[in-house]
């Protein structure tokens, strides 16, 4: 199970970084959401610290660490807020520039 979890987190990070580097604002915003999901899962995994069981297995009799779950809840709320603001800004950009290609949104360089 730990292995599956590690592979999932790694895949999500890879997908997120790939999406973020694409030349389209909506796709980059998606990469942003994927990366934050990956970090939240990573936080869940570090709850397996010092012999405690992580929340995603039911082996052993020691309860899992509740603190990481509280941290994840907060991180979800915060990243949701930034994601909403980002999508709002992308929306305004699309009406003003009539495009979402990052190469064409380039007035700052002039």
């Amino acid at each position, binding site marked *: 199970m730990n292995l599956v979890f590690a592979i999932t987190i790694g895949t999500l990070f890879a997908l997120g970084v790939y999406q*973020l580097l694409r030349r389209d*604002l909506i796709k*980059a915003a998606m990469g*942003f959401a994927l*990366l*934050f999901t990956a*970090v939240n899962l*990573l*936080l869940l995994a*570090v709850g397996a*610290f*010092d012999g405690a069981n992580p929340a995603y297995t039911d082996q052993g009799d020691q309860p899992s660490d509740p603190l*990481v779950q509280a*941290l994840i809840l*907060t*991180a979800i709320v*915060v990243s949701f*807020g*930034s994601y909403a*603001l*980002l999508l709002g*800004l*992308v929306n*305004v*950009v699309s009406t*003003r520039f009539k495009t979402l290609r990052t190469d064409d*949104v380039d*007035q*700052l360089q002039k």
Partner: protein
Amino acid sequence: MAANNLLLIVTVFVPLIGAVVSLFFWGRDRIQRRIGFAAGVIAWLASIGVLAAAMQDGPQVYRLGGWDAPFGIVLVGDALSSIMVLMSSTVLMAGLLYALGCHDKVVKNPAFTALFLGMETGLLGALFTGDLFTMFVFMEIMVLSSVSLVAISDNKLGLEAAIKYLFISSMGTLFLLLGTAAVYATFGTLNFADIGNQLAQGDRSILAREAAVMLTAAFLLKSAVFPFHFWQPDFHTTAPTPVHAVLSSVVVKIGVYGLIRMTTLLFTAEGELEAIRTVLLVLGTISIFFGSLGAFRTYDGKRMLAYSTFGQIGFILLGIGWGTPLALAAAIVYAFNHAFIKSALLMLFGVVSSRTQTKSARLTEVAGVGRSLPLFVGLLYLLGGMALAGIPPLNGFISKLALVQSGIDAQMWLTLGLAIGAGILTLMYMTRTWQLVFQQKPDASTAPLKTYNDSPLAPALLIAGCVALGLFAAPLAELATAAADQILNAPVYIEAVLGVEPAAIVGR
């Protein structure tokens, strides 16, 4: 165990309450801005109280909800964070005062005051908080408010700069969260004092190295140091004047604060500390040069001052990198003085550019504009420029003197020589723009100027502060020295927060 100090919570949450109250006056922007200024003044008074208490009785603590330290959230006002908070709340108060006399369209936006006060809450909270995760939350509040403020700026390019910054700062936040995860996996706690305590007992360090890398990257990104600097001139230049003054002078200092905390409390093991300090010295030196040359070459007055901030942060990093008590005190003095000088200069440039029809700060358009302003505005700009370059008896001289002294003390000749060379560049670009704006005859072909301009009251007060800090430098120097002693003596901090003798509690 010290009692709760209520002033800590007043400093952080009065701006937040002010933001909510201002929203009830939707559409009545004068009342909103007055509420904002009142909240800023209350936070400023409370931060003075915290500093006085911290210098007299050691670190002040507020435990939220009464939970003891490693389990609950604590706000800690030790000497370092109280000085940083006093600096920030002073500049934020001046920014709110400037907004009262500002003619930009953005200050009439019903959300302006709420967003500005949200930025204040985030900044002061991130400086006061005693654990890593709460710091992340407060920093996000600050980032989201400042992004929104830049996106609604009068400058049309603000939107593009805001979206660019939101992406980049989210990467910084991601690094901070990764660092948080690594710290939690290593120590099983996120409280600064608890981590310091476990390190003092020589506890495990499974992922400590990774955590150090992630957190250093996150803080360097927030401070716009060399490889992470590319967003800063765009984002700061397009911001409305009162916001730009705050962003370029105190918001970038949050990374500096985090780096000081990291090198004195979190990662104090031999090898790690050396590595972090070397990185800071190298990047600081590069930043000084990139910043000074960029400021010298650029075409826009506000952009010049943003580049200059990028260089000045490099000087502060040198102080942290040398790491001796004298150098840390010099870094604190430098950060404090720079906040006053830079915010005053930016507001003065805002006053100048508010006269032009396009509100532009392009050097070709503001040439000669200063001649239509009262004489003392030009004088204030000259004073600020000389302070930035480090001419006695202004406060910039005191901070340069402290830094050079600590450099000689630490025997770092190469970086010291480079730093002094960059100071001369500062003098060159400041006198050049002063001459251009306030001495040169206006170009007859440019559009006619407006008959009104923003009120120069706030920058005048800040420059008065600069002169006072230059003439009476001893109190600040003593404060900074006491703060450096206190942060290098980690057990004092740990005992105040955890309420026990360090190394008396066993790691879990």
